[in-house]
């Protein structure tokens, strides 16, 4: 976890700053879109936060030398798709319930 | 201020925010959400304590970290049970509230 690295310290700083920047961008977008009128907008907002969050996570993991961040990113990608499918299935089921 | 203190304070605020939601929302699903929010805050407190205990080449004390993992699993089990109860209530009565009216 805290293994030695040959990475240049300036490189770690750069990646760290990039992680912060990407996260800030995504947060700005999130605030706008969570207000969106429909459910579909919102679930896509979460999906998009996912993309940016994963990018930030990968950068952070590389900057602070946590290789397991890759596994966390893989997990997030898989589970984000799972949540979206649960939404689609739940929405169609809700219509069936109402019919 | 260290990052452990910062995240510890963040966890304190999260517990308060979650508790407010738990008290104020009439809908059970919102209460379940708030309960999970509080859970996140409490686990984060453990995380801050673990981070403070960084020693022996580790970034944090593994014992509280393992406790958080156990806690997350139990919180999930409780959430799943609560959601199942709520959905059954909805199936039986067509309502998803606990109000005594109607």
């Amino acid at each position: 976890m805290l293994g030695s690295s040959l990475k240049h310290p300036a490189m770690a700083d750069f990646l760290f700053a990039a992680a912060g920047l990407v996260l800030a961008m995504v947060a700005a977008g999130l605030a706008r879109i969570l207000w969106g009128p429909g459910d579909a907008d919102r679930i896509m907002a979460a999906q998009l936060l996912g993309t940016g969050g994963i990018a930030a996570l990968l950068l952070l993991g590389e900057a602070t030398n946590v290789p397991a961040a890759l596994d966390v990113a893989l997990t997030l990608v898989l589970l984000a798709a799972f949540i979206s499918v649960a939404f689609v299935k739940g929405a169609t089921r809700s219509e069936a319930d109402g019919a | 201020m260290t990052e452990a203190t910062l995240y510890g304070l963040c966890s304190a605020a999260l517990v308060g925010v979650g508790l407010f939601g738990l008290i104020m929302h009439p809908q059970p699903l919102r209460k379940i959400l708030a309960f999970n929010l509080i859970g996140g805050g409490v686990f984060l407190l453990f995380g801050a304590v673990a981070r403070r205990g960084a020693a022996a080449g580790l970034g944090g004390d593994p014992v509280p970290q393992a406790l958080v993992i156990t806690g997350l699993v139990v919180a999930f089990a409780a959430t799943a049970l609560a959601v199942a109860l709520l959905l059954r209530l909805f199936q039986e009565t067509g309502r998803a509230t606990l109000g005594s009216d109607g």
Partner: protein
Amino acid sequence: MAFDIGLALLVLGVGAWTVAARDTFAAVVGFVAYGLLLALLWVRLAAPDVALTEAALGSGLTGGLLVSASTRLRRAETRAVDERQPASLRLAAAVLCTLVSAGVAAIVLLLPEPAPTLAPQAMVNMAATGLGNPVTAVLMAYRAIDTLLETVVLLLALVGIWSLAPDRVWGGVPGPRHQAEPDGLLTFIAQLLVPVGILVGIHIFWVGSVAPGGEFQGATILAAMWILAMMAGLVDAPAVNRRWLRLMLVAGPAVFLTIGLTGFAVAGSFLAYPEPHAKLLILMIEIPVTLSIAATLALLVAGPPERAPGR
């Protein structure tokens, strides 16, 4: 530090939004975002094992469960909206919550210095377990009793959910039957994601002995993939009275308990492992436990039986 302050504020903001949102579904989406940010935060707190658990279970599986519940409850929820509480009650609640927050904050600020830690002991004794990941060593060796009881708690929750089934579908199949469309998009995505997800799940379980990961994280991913396959109609949920299913559910805790009891005979106390074989025994526990947890988690999400068992 600027990054940490920003991340902490972001987590707080999303958390507050989850409470404040008027629409329940919007709040649930906020909660999913909250979980994702917490996973980032756990990486910052040097707890990658917890980050994995949060990503898989705290945000992922819980998120999926709440998303489908809130879409199903949609109409009931909108009907129930606006039972506004009186202002005096809101104020009282706000004061109470501020006090609780202040109390927790005081605890954080007054934590003893230097911080007590079990990290050195965990590292010193790790060689005896044959493991390379201290968190797994805590879960499977030092505090194995917690983990054993936890697997039992999961089973109890499942029994609770199953007992909600109406009489006519007792012991039946959870959830609706999802029809697969051979050329459908959902079938495609499931056929793609499920095998990859199973590989990732096994990988994360397997590296858990030496690196961040372990049985809970791996099992959660496997569970999510099973439910994904069910939702896409690739497989049907099993009737909960199937013998193989019941066996699969109890196999993990049963093996765990058996090896724990054997500890009395071979190493002097409950859940003690004889030193040269510790790693082998831990692995013998972990494999069935992972399968049992995966099945239990998936069935917890699937909910109570809704269709008669048939055949």
